[in-house]
């Protein structure tokens, strides 16, 4: 069913009775051309683009839980392409361009809102650093605006500009950045894939990847063995657990990141604002809740729930730029598991095993990558070649030394 203003109006006259379920609940077939492990944003977008761009229909996505139960439904929904490393900028810009046409493309309202992403700077040296980042973006044709203090004040007058420790001197603005409705992104890709014949198998856990003579033959799952010519691991925080069943060891550690949402208040924050003297980001959802987060909890974890020091740190950073929200009540907070890579950048590549592919290492920033990640991974699975914007995201960069370390912190994943 095509969604449009006409379908809404006509359903209104039919008592909303003709809406169809958005995807099927098929039983697994014995064999697929390609099997995707992980039904998060990236797994679903991979399936969508495999079907749409490359004509694959005999493929499946297996998800151990329900769709959107992972980080795709837990993130703070920030979408941007303000990176500075040459290996990253073209990829994230490709993603932002896909976001700009995504809702028309998959005919689903993902509530993409290009409200702007503003990174605040608090010192002269940080201004220079942000100017450099803005220049790096512009060299790749991505617009960036370096705002001075008064220009920042025009956009977000309620910040604590004269904070004694972290005065606000200005900010780097990417007006095309913004937020999107995270669950709707997963649902839109799922619907688009399902309607093209992709089987989405929920409550189906990958237990063991079967490899014979250096070649993948399929996956043992909680619903039996499924044969496949090619297998793609897209399991975010659980990547290494699945990869090790095929004997692969990866440059990845899993950590928990927390996120927070407050009670709804009247419209206050017009864009995404990030604090430059720490690591804090905040925006306001269309329902009015303030959505925010900070750094991860600094030790490895698969618990999908965080600890109190992380909460305290986040709230302290909020108070350092926005004391005006100190009386706003917190509604919920939660955690998600993230695949932190050793240089803070993702991996989309083949492995040493024939037919086995990986898409992982998304760290804090995989939501914005959802469309391009699937787009490029589908390209790799279908053609065997890296997509031109993803050629730097190779697994062997840790051997060759061509790491993509945006933060410059070295092989310490909890610092990226």
């Amino acid at each position, binding site marked *: 069913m095509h969604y449009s203003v006409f379908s809404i109006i006509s359903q209104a006259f039919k008592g909303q009775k003709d809406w169809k379920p958005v995807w099927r609940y098929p039983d697994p077939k014995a064999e697929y051309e390609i099997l995707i492990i992980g039904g998060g944003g990236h797994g679903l977008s991979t399936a969508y683009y495999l079907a749409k761009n490359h004509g694959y229909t005999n493929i499946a996505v297996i998800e151990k839980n329900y769709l959107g139960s992972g980080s795709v439904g837990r993130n703070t929904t920030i979408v941007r392409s303000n990176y500075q490393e040459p290996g990253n900028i073209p990829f994230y810009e490709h993603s932002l361009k896909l976001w700009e046409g995504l809702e028309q493309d998959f005919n689903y309202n993902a509530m993409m809102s290009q409200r702007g992403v503003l990174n605040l700077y608090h010192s002269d040296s940080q201004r220079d650093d942000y100017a450099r980042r803005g220049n790096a973006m512009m060299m790749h044709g991505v617009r960036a605006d370096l705002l001075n203090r008064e220009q920042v004040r025009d956009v977000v007058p309620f910040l604590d500009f004269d904070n004694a420790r972290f005065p606000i001197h200005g900010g780097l603005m990417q007006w095309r950045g913004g937020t999107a409705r995270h669950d709707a992104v997963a649902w839109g890709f799922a619907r688009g894939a399902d309607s093209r014949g992709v089987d989405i198998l929920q409550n189906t856990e990958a237990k063991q990847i079967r490899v014979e003579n250096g070649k993948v033959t399929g996956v043992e799952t909680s619903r039996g063995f499924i044969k496949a010519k090619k297998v793609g691991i897209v399991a975010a925080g659980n990547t290494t657990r699945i990869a090790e069943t095929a004997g692969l060891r990866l*440059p990845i*550690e*899993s950590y928990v990141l927390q996120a927070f949402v407050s009670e709804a208040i009247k419209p206050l924050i017009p864009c995404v604002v990030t604090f430059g003297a720490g690591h804090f980001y905040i925006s306001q959802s269309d329902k009015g809740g303030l959505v925010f987060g900070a750094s991860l909890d600094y*030790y*490895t974890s*698969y*618990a999908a729930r965080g600890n109190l020091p992380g909460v305290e740190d986040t709230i302290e950073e909020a108070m350092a730029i926005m004391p005006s929200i100190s009386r706003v009540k917190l509604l919920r907070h939660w955690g998600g598991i993230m695949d932190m890579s050793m240089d803070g950048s993702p991996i989309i590549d083949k492995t040493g095993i024939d037919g086995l592919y990986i898409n992982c290492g998304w760290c804090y920033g995989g939501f914005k990558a959802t469309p391009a990640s699937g787009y490029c991974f589908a390209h790799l699975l279908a053609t065997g070649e890296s997509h031109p914007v993803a050629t730097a995201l190779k697994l062997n960069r840790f*051997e060759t030394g061509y790491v993509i370390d945006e933060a410059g912190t070295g*092989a310490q994943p*909890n610092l990226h």
Partner: protein
Amino acid sequence: MRIPCPFCGPRDSQEFSFLGQAGLKRPDPNAPDAQMQFHDYVHIRDNKAGVTQELWLHANGCRSWIVVTRNTLTHEITGSEFASPQVKEAAQ
């Protein structure tokens, strides 16, 4: 989370900083496959779901490096000891 420091006793986790997997051995730089061994040493970790042994520094305390036994699925901590064999011996 409270971490039992063998010197200071149970202390708030905020006093500690986390390094990662314990027991990694620095490879011999003269080994014929030293380059690959160093790649693994710097970049490859077990990333275990379950009980792990990991290095923590009691940075805002006695400043000892300690090996903590912790479950990454539950955050439960079941033991800790000094990382350095000399310190371990001296403490006995």
